[in-house]
């Protein structure tokens, strides 16, 4: 709180604080561990660049801003674009109507190919037809496994959230879980609901759902703790995103529960948690691969007429499980933010 006695204090206070900060920096008050200096430059994936003519590809997803998962999809798409001499136009909107507008926008720009996610296929039907009419090849990725063919798309890369959830449920059976709680960080999100539904379908034990406020970590932590205390028979916490799994580790210890934790999706910190044994396993649908393959496929189609799956079968990018047996291999890619 500010003092009442200060007359014209703001400027001086700011200067003083800035000087103090600068002094701290200048005094070489550096950290001897961690930080960027410690982060090894692991080298980026670099490859040659195709000599084919420059083309433009639009990638339109239903990403909400700041979502880790989609960030990796985008990185994969960018890697493919860089290799294939493609100009990548990325846009996203979680609202289906707005996403359809973004596809229309790409058609108006006369791009050479469109990659689109089908979180709400019905909303995208018309605009996909328009693109095809305009002679622009359209490929699907991520969600829409059951609808891409109906929409006349060229090919599809990904894995339904439901399929991932089902694989997760089977894995829970393998590890002998009895009662799981599925933690949804955004109530009403289609993909997250499908993941939990998939788990419920194949898991032989009981699955409960718990909603938490994903934008507020302290409340995520408290709510999971509360649930574990309310029901001490829960032996597995199923998180639907890496940050929430890491928070669940704290909740489990706060609640003094014996529950184990497994999660969908990966990130750097999660791989170290798997190494330490805090988290049992993660199921990864390889978002990087989805972005990469979708963009690369449009290049192949344009330059060599290839398409995967013959218009009949989708290309599945998962589920890939990460646990203590293979985490070392994957950790170094996760550290770069590409797994």
């Amino acid at each position, binding site marked *: *709180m*500010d003092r*009442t006695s200060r007359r014209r204090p*703001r400027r001086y*206070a*700011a200067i003083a*604080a*800035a000087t*103090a*900060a600068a002094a*701290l*920096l200048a005094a070489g*008050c*550096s*950290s*001897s*561990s*961690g*930080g*960027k*200096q*410690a*982060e090894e430059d692991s080298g980026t994936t670099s490859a040659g660049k195709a000599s084919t003519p420059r083309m433009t590809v639009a990638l339109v997803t239903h990403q*909400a*801003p*700041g*979502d*880790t998962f989609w*960030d990796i999809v985008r*990185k994969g798409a960018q890697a493919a674009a860089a290799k294939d001499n493609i100009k990548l136009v990325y846009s996203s909107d979680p609202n289906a109507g707005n996403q359809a507008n973004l596809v229309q926008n790409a058609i108006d720009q006369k791009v050479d190919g469109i990659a689109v996610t089908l979180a709400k296929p019905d909303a995208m039907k018309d605009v996909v037809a328009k693109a095809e009419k305009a002679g622009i090849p359209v490929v699907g990725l991520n969600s829409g496994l059951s609808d891409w063919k109906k929409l006349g798309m060229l090919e599809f890369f990904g894995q339904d959230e439901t399929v991932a959830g089902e694989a997760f449920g089977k894995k829970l059976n393998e590890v002998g879980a009895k009662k799981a709680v599925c933690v949804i960080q955004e*109530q009403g999100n289609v993909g997250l609901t499908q993941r939990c539904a998939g788990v419920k379908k194949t898991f032989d034990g009981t699955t*409960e*759902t*718990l*909603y938490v*406020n994903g*934008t*507020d*970590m*302290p*409340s995520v*932590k*408290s*709510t999971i*703790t*509360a*649930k574990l*205390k*309310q*029901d001490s028979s829960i032996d597995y916490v199923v998180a639907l995103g890496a*940050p929430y799994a*890491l*928070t669940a580790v*704290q909740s489990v210890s*706060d*609640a003094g529960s014996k529950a184990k934790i497994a999660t969908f999706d990966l*990130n*750097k*910190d999660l791989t170290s948690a798997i190494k330490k044994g805090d988290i049992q396993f993660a199921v990864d649908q390889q978002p990087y691969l989805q972005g990469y393959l979708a963009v690369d496929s449009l290049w192949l189609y344009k330059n060599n007429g290839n398409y995967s799956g013959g218009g009949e079968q989708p290309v599945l990018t998962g589920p890939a499980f990460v646990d203590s047996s293979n985490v070392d291999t994957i950790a170094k890619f996760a550290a770069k*933010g590409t797994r």
Partner: protein
Amino acid sequence: MTVTQATAPATSPSSPASPAAQRDGRTAQRSLGRRLLARPEVGALIAAVGVYVFFFAAAPAFREASALSTVLYQASVMGIMALPVALLMIGGEFDLSAGVAVTTSALTAAILSFQLSVNVWTGVVVALVVSLAVGAFNGWLLIKTGLPSFLVTLGSFLVLQGANLAVTKIFTSNVASDSISDMDGFDQAKTIFASEFSVGGVNVKITIIYWLVFAAAATWLLLRTKFGNWIFAVGGNKDSARAVGVPVNLTKIALFMGVGAGAWFVGMHLLFSFNTVQSGEGVGNEFLYIIAAVIGGCLLTGGYGSAIGPVIGAFIFGMVSQGIVYANWNPDWFKAFLGVMLLVAALVNLWVRRTATRR
């Protein structure tokens, strides 16, 4: 319960000090009970007791001391921010950027420490400067432009939300800050901002202590200092306040900077208890802070309220959101339950105030 203890100093000796209470002080002396009920936070306190008793009866798991500690933890993190937000509301303004400002502060400290590989305390200090600057900028813009604070801070809310994401991506090429848990000074800072201790076998998070200390400080500030009178004055009627010599601009800027300071504190707690910060966090929390203040008896129009009120408001919110989980109600209805419970709490509050001020 801790809450009742904390209310005591606010109620008994000090009601004449607040201009809000002076308003009806001209009428004949009313009974002590009536005067107590007229305090802004008493309605909320009754609602809080009601909610507590309700969940105590409905949810067996809620009865344990450790459950209370979990509830208090969530309430404290929200409540620390609700305090400066309530003071600002008493001063007649809103800050919609309060939620994302917390994330901004945490990201600043994390990214700066990591990128420059310096002791995390450097990041902590710089984050404080940035947070205070954001607050001062909000206040300055409000005064210079004369626009409503709703609009000014809506702008800064969107700017900060975008900047959080974009700046994080520039530096980390991810959407979360890098973990700084292995850096120098981290353990020290964690002890201060995010430690916990055991009381009779129950883990108590340190934020709960800070929350109550800050609430006591804010109560003292409101009821016992000149600055406190200024806050009520500028919230009640800005022009009259200026006419009697209250430095309106200084008061408002200071209140916004107070929100900045709160955002910094909560941001540091987030950073040191979760090691990394997601750039998209905090969106929507600004409304929770305002809700806590309003349940606690602050008027949306300014000039009336207390610092104990938002403490109780945050406690009610924490109890309801965790109580629903402890009671194991169908989670699909979670938000609907939450809404009903909060409405009931707000109505009880309103009813108590009406009853108390009626003659």
